[in-house]
């Protein structure tokens, strides 16, 4: 994270009339990192991305990409940027290679390097066998890949991908994630998505946005911790063979446990602990159960997933309570 930032947003704001779509957000994407931009639908992800890619100007605030200001130096920003818009719009009547060639010409590449890069990106995006196909005949997944190939064509230092895995089948999603993870280091990638597992798998940093504001940012691990510190996030689920009432009261007496409740009681009882769950807590629980002579069958922490955190902080009700 000591690397200089490749994408910087400062107090970036966009309002449509009286509706504030993006509300003074600031963040930085370090060079060579893959950063996930996460938020529910209508959170302002696409609007933010559109401002970063010079498609629309910010109402106030500023942003820079690859060291160039998006408003005052937008041509240089766009030269250094590969952008996959939502739904990857393309010219349906063109053929794959023809379209990529057109896009290369728009970026001022010469014929030789266009030809070379078309071979490379079609290979990279599993399109080599579809090069001569009319785009109108391609399935949604292939069009999406064509969009990614287009974004990579001029080998830009910065990539902005708006929901790159939408419309792909599971194996393609996996391949695409692998592709994106491989881009890290060579490219700086800002990836918007509302799929959490995607972020956990490929991103070094996550920015969660909701109602036009940044709700949280950090690495997936940091966010999980943050989630645990909020208390309600982490629960410890135990499966123990023994008398449920005794087990519950014994566990509830442990320091750090706020609440212990029996989930099911059927010879083997399942008990849920809520409190400050950390490493030593688990050890103390195990020691206690062993000391009493009960049989511990399973112990797992639940709810520390990003998903829970995401739902928690993007839900307006719980945000107001926090």
């Amino acid at each position, binding site marked *: 994270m000591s690397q200089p930032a490749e994408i910087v947003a400062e107090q970036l704001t966009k309002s449509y009339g009286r509706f504030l779509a993006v509300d003074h957000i600031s963040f930085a994407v370090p060079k060579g990192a893959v950063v996930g931009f996460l938020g529910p639908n209508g959170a302002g992800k696409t609007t933010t991305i*559109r401002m970063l*890619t*010079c*498609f*629309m*100007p910010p109402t106030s605030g500023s942003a820079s990409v690859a060291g160039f200001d998006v408003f005052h130096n937008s*041509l*240089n920003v*766009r*030269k250094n*940027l590969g*952008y996959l*818009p*939502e*739904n990857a*719009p*393309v*010219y349906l*009547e*063109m053929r794959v290679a023809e379209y990529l060639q*057109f*896009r290369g*010409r*728009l*970026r*001022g590449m010469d014929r030789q390097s266009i030809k070379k890069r078309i071979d490379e990106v079609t290979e990279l995006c599993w399109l080599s066998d579809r090069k001569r196909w009319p785009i109108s005949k391609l399935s949604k997944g292939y069009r999406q890949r064509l969009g990614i190939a*287009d974004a990579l064509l001029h080998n830009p230092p910065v990539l902005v991908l708006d929901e790159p895995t939408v419309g792909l089948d599971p194996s393609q999603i996996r391949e695409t994630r692998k592709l994106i993870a491989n881009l890290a280091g060579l490219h700086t990638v800002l990836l918007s998505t509302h799929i959490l597992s995607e972020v956990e798998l490929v991103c070094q940093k996550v920015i969660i946005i909701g109602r036009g504001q940044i709700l949280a940012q950090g690495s997936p691990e940091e966010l999980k911790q943050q989630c645990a510190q909020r208390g309600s996030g982490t629960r410890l689920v135990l499966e123990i063979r023994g008398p449920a009432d005794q087990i519950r009261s014994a566990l509830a007496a442990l320091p750090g446990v706020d609440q212990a409740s029996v989930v099911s009681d059927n010879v083997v009882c399942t008990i849920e602990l809520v409190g400050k769950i950390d490493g030593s807590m688990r050890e103390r629980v195990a020691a206690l159960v062993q000391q009493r002579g009960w049989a511990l069958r399973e112990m797992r922490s639940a709810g520390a997933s990003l998903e829970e955190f995401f739902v928690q902080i993007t839900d307006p009700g719980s945000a107001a309570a926090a």
Partner: protein
Amino acid sequence: MSTTLALAKREIAGLFYSPIGYIVLAIYLLFVGLLFSLLVMRPGAIADPGPMFQWNHLILIFVVPFMTMALFSEEYRSGRIETLRTSPITDFQLLMGKFLGAMGFYCVVIASSLIFIIILSLFGRPDYMTVLTSYLGLLLMGMLMVSIGLFFSACTQHQILAAMSSCVTLVALGILFQAISFFLSSALGVSWSFLRTLRHLLRYLAIEPHMANFSRGIVDSQNIVFFLTGAGLFLFLTYVVLESRKWR
């Protein structure tokens, strides 16, 4: 320059890929053929294709809007405008690419009428210099018509709306203004100076008198200036519409 040409090339190709291009071409040829057989190819008449060019705009005002309607509207509607505007091209390059592309197709359309010149030359000896000035006139007139179509296409994401607006504007320039000025001069006798000024103005804005000179072999700077300033005005307005996203 090469990016502008890449855009223009795609635009011409786009029109040839879609059925619209061929429909436009077919309708144009049909009606020019009608003009040709009614006004030019008459028994005993001299081999003068002039009338075919003089009234050519009556066809083009209904044909050009369908050529130009998709130029920007379809980019807006499909979202491709986002890939275009996030590419390193300026609004001016985008505008010129679209304009040149549409003009390229327009040239193909008017060149298709050469077939009638060939037919005519089989039966007589038309004045080829006049034919040349006529095509120069058509080209200049096309710049005005295409830029009007381009402007309305940049204003909306609905192709039909763009086509209708440019059609109405072109009908005003091609038919309405001349009809009104004709009405003012004949029916009212024009004694009132305001009406006289209005009549002159409308007559200046009408396409036909400008085109008539070219079709007679006259290349008058007044006519050239009319078409070029008109095209320049609408290209400028289109540019303003494109730029407006920066302060909207």
